[in-house]
């Protein structure tokens, strides 16, 4: 008995000593399929790095953003690795809140990162976050309904074609809406879609002197087209539909077309979840022949906050999670179709991936068609395709989103919504000191 106690004591003491020696890093992340998969595969990392323990904090996107902002602004030091998007990276890097990633390792191959994505995550040529998965937006459409309508979707459609196709596909008696688009208010919800769409109509949020542009005809054309299209061919209650609501509608066969994140392709083509899995086609986001398409660019990325005490361990983890080796690891365990998309050029050159993911080429083309540094037809003073990378944008974008959502719901006219948006933007820009 005594011997057993002694052995147990020794064992626990050594376990404690080991635990004390191991460095633990805390990773803040969002709940989506790719991130959850990564958490399951971390054995591969901890085996190679037995002295690093990983703690995960998974939060809903908006809560995460608020939590992480609070912590980073107060230098609370709660997190060692952050999951953030293309909106935050340039702003936070300029505030010196993030550490530049310059020790990712010799075999990391930074140049392999898709240039459009790397551009959105760099400031002054330095990479401040490593992309975990990247996305753009494109058109997902029902091939069977398109055929029934007697039309053929071009690889690069125009907005006029989308309108024509939507009108023909709409069959409300059978519950089919020609087109499903985001309407739920929020800077990352309807405004992500509408800002990207407005780029293809030649609109912009601000001119070179930060003067708001909602009083210009380009915005009027954008919003009027959107509201008319949705009234004629959109689902009922569209003003409360976001990504998830439209995904559910599309998977149940209630949408002829859906223009949204490229990452949705893996959901709508999954026969386990989608009733229309074998009938989905893909095309680039529409344009108006002005040189810009209505697609966005986003990358969920891993960054290291400046307040961390464990920068080396954190960077080792970031390097592992965004490496080529990680893509191969996912492929070997769960198949190529489940590999996080949109980050590395080499993935799109891989024939096995091309075979497993029929949407691969269209995803890459969409990503390449977005240019965060020159997002609009006319020149602008900001970076960002479906957002404006300034701290004021979260609040302002959501306010404008609410106005536009109300216009979609018929609670106000397009003109009223634009006038109020112009007033709100002017007030926010004046308060922020951008204009006098």
């Amino acid at each position, binding site marked *: 008995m005594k011997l057993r106690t002694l052995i147990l004591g020794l064992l626990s003491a050594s376990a404690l000593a080991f635990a004390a020696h191991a460095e633990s890093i805390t990773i803040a992340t969002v*709940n989506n399929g790719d991130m959850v998969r990564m958490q399951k595969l971390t054995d591969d990392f901890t085996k190679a790095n037995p002295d690093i323990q990983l703690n995960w904090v*998974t939060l809903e996107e*908006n809560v995460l953003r608020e939590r992480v902002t609070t912590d980073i602004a107060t*230098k609370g030091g709660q997190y060692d690795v952050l999951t953030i998007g293309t909106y935050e990276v340039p702003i936070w890097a300029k505030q010196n809140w993030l550490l530049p990633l310059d020790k990712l390792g010799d075999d990391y191959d930074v140049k392999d990162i898709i240039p459009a994505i790397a551009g959105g995550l760099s400031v002054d040529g330095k990479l401040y976050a490593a992309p975990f998965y990247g996305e753009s937006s494109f058109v997902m459409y029902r091939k069977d309904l398109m055929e029934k309508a007697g039309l053929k979707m071009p690889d690069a459609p125009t907005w006029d074609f989308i309108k024509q196709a939507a009108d023909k596909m709409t069959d409300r008696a059978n519950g089919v809406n020609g087109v499903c688009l985001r309407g739920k208010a929020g800077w990352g919800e309807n405004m992500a879609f509408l800002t990207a769409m407005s780029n293809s109509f030649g609109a912009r949020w601000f001119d070179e002197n930060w003067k708001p542009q909602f009083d210009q005809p380009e915005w009027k054309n954008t919003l009027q087209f959107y509201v008319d299209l949705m009234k004629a061919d959109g689902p009922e209650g569209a003003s409360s539909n976001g990504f*998830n609501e439209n995904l559910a509608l599309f998977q149940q066969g209630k949408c002829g077309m859906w223009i949204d994140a490229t990452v949705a392709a893996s959901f709508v083509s999954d026969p386990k979840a989608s009733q229309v899995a074998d009938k989905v086609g893909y095309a680039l986001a529409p344009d108006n022949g002005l040189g810009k398409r209505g697609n966005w660019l986003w990358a969920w990325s891993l960054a290291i906050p400046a307040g961390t005490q464990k920068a080396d361990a954190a960077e080792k983890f970031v390097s592992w999670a965004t490496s080529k080796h990680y893509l191969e690891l996912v492929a070997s365990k769960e198949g190529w179709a489940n590999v996080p998309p949109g980050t590395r050029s080499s993935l799109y050159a891989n024939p096995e991936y091309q075979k497993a993911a029929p949407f691969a080429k269209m995803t890459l083309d969409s990503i390449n068609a977005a240019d965060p540094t020159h997002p609009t037809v006319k020149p602008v003073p900001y970076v960002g395709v479906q957002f404006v990378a300034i701290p004021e944008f979260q609040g302002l974008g959501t306010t404008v989103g609410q106005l536009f959502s109300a216009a979609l719901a018929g609670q106000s006219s397009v003109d009223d919504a634009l006038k109020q948006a112009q007033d709100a933007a002017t007030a926010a820009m004046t308060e922020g000191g951008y204009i006098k």
Partner: protein
Amino acid sequence: MARAVTTQHKTIATAAAWIVALLIFFPILYTIITSFKSEQEAIQGFNLIPSGTFESYSEVQQQSGYFKFFFNSVLLSVGSTILALIVAIPAAWSMAFSPTKRTKDVLMWMLSTKMMPAVAVLFPIYLIFRDSGLLDSRIGLTVMLMLINLPIVVWMLYTYFREIPGEILEAARMDGASLWNEIIYVLTPMAIPGIASTMLLNIILAWNEAFWTIRLTTTNAAPLTAFISSFSSPQGLFWAKLSAASTLAIAPILIMGWFSQKQLVRGLTFGAVK
């Protein structure tokens, strides 16, 4: 005749009570039903009969590990309640039995702290927690939960204590009871029903608190509110998993509430009708 009307009234009142109760309970019921569906079933519109799969529960457990969060929830809610009672019983005693001119103002001031939106003090509190090393600590969060619920605890106890005749305490004093003896041996036993229902309500409030418990924790002290939050996703449909996580999180407090409903109702309506 009069009897018939009473029966009819009774039936209508019972039916109305059932309808209201069902309306209030329905969202919880539907969450529980959805938790036994597959993800595909969950998005297929309204359906009250699930296929009965436990898939979501096992995935939720695999992904996050329920018991760590459960343990923290129990510790935080019970701990903060006990702490609150230790502070609130003497406070309510003094206000109920030796009121001064300003007692009402003090009570009102305490309640007024509940009128401010919590987010208004997020930064100061966060900085205090950071500087005292209390971020993500169970002790820090227990104190925080105690503080935010304290006004309600004091108010409830004050209302119960006021119902107890002061003469009984005077009699105890005349028999030579010290202050402590008076509170512990005379007041507390008489106020047990009131204290019990205050305790129950406070445990429920602390259990469901989702602002500070999410914002002041990361991994070590995170309770079930953080557990639920981790299954909410703007991109991807995880309704069945989210429902399973919610059901797991509310089950303990629902069961506790069910068993103690008599106490709770009695406590909440105590002194309401004279």
